[in-house]
């Protein structure tokens, strides 16, 4: 779906036409569930958060500036709700659902590949689990949703310094747990700065 189609969907939604939401659901639902899952670690909760986020989007669409993309605005709702839910749970329990009945693994991995993949997934899962929810949300926004720090500050409701601090702490923790291959804290300055941020900074 192109930007024009999305803008038209938003315009329809702003007029109270529920059909506009249908278009947006089809575009953003899967990504929203996945983002929520990465924060809360429970697929059922993630589905619930994503559905609730669309209801909220329906309610709040009047406050949405249609000149901006819908995705980051909607992601804020998803991530904030996910953090709230994760914060309310004693400990994030990543259900061992990767082998569930719904065909969650790719159809035809061999036994060795399957074991390696499972091991890698368990490591990612444990690493995310150890992060405080707000840091987990920041990691998901930055590395899964591909938002720049400027976008996170704009749509995340936290000051840029807080965003930067959360990401820094998350990267340090994840680097310890996952090894230096992933998410290492930049040694000097902002070597990992996204080109979009560099542009923003200029």
């Amino acid at each position, binding site marked *: 779906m192109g930007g024009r189609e999305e803008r038209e969907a938003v315009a329809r939604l702003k007029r109270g036409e529920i059909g506009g939401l249908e278009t947006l659901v089809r575009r953003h639902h899967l990504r929203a569930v996945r983002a929520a899952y990465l924060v809360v670690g429970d697929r059922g909760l993630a589905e619930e958060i994503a559905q609730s986020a669309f209801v909220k989007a329906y309610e709040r669409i009047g406050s949405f500036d*249609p*000149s901006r993309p819908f995705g980051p605005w909607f992601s804020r709702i998803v991530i904030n709700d996910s953090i709230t839910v994760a914060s309310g749970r004693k400990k994030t329990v990543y259900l061992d659902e990767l082998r569930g009945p719904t065909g969650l693994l790719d159809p035809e991995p061999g036994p060795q590949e399957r074991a390696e993949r499972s091991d890698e997934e368990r490591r990612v899962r444990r690493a995310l689990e150890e992060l405080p929810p707000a840091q987990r949300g920041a990691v998901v926004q930055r590395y899964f949703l591909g938002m720049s720090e400027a976008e996170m500050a704009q749509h995340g409701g936290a000051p840029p310094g807080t965003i930067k601090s959360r990401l820094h702490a998350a990267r340090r923790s994840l680097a310890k747990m996952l090894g230096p291959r992933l998410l290492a804290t930049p040694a000097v300055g902002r070597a*990992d700065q996204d080109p979009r941020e560099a542009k923003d900074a200029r």
Partner: protein
Amino acid sequence: MPADREKKVLTEKELRDYAERAVPAAEDPWPAIRQRLQTELRPEPERASASGPERSWPPQLVPSTPLGYALAVLSVLILAVGAYAASGPVRELSRQGLLGGPEPGHGEGSGVEEQPNPGEQGHERQGVPDQWAEDLLRWNTPEVREANLDVRLNETRTVGRITVALERAYADEGNVVIVYSTSGWDNQEGHSGLAMPTLSDESGATFESVGNSGMVTDPMRESIVGKDATIEVLEPSEKLEASGRHEFRLRTQLDPSHGTSDGQGNGATEAAKTLTFDFAIPVHELDVIDVGQTVEANEISMTLDRVENSPARSQAILCFDPPQDEKYNWLPLTKRPIINDFFLNELLHRTEPEEPTGCVGYDLYSSLYDNPGAHSITVTKIEGRTRAYTKPEETISGPWTFEFETPEP
């Protein structure tokens, strides 16, 4: 690829792979979400037994189709006409209610009143027109007519046997109003028969309908804009610059679902043709009343920064910093007259928070443009919810009352 850049890419891939395997593409999510919306937006009596009493803000009354929209406007207008006949001039109506007009038992402009319970409110002030009706009536006020603010365009385009006329237009820095009509339908069906028009302009702004638009179906307005004309109020994504001449382009199409006598609609060929109207009109200065009053109640400090006052609509820009803003969606509530059994007591949320203040614009229900003099706005309480249309999780009572004066238009 630099090492840190490579790490970032690897991290992105790791998270993406993990999420994709945990949550694969599933069946169509829309039916479940639509069901949820319909359940959560169901009328109050149906929900009450299952989830206890809840506020009856009426999403179920938000029309989902052009016809539904037109019927909703028609219903409201019927009530509005009744109210008009029963209670005198519109000016008097709009001085009541939300905008703190004097009321029995209250001081001048105080407007302070605790929000009644839903059941109680159902018997209060029935028949007072709601926002749509008031906005339509507002455009009909003598002040607007005498000020001759809008421009008569009378541009027409014809597709097959259907003629579309762009009759009039008005613009200020924050609003554009267009009045258009169609003719040639076998059955107008209370709707223009056009797809929602899109407006663009020389500045590259985008325009959104602010919702207080609708087809003119009451006799009072026919002398002004013609029978079956539609009024559309739109807001630009960024404020326009006031000038003597501003170029706009309006585009629309025939609605392929609109009925004809044979029940076959318009046919794809005619419906697909885009109708374009280019026009240039002045952009008037938007009347901004700087208020800057701050009131504190229950440890919540609330500021009415300003009121933007247009013949198209009036908007209050409010700033407050509620607790747990991340957790809740906070809505300010005011006293509000009702129609039948639904509320319109939430101020209509209109704008993204302004940077850096976080202030938000809310549409007012009543015209200030044709009501010069002293006014007050009272926010009786703010309510925080985690989910739409559910009981508020938190309520903080005010009141926060702001007083200001609007000049003669």
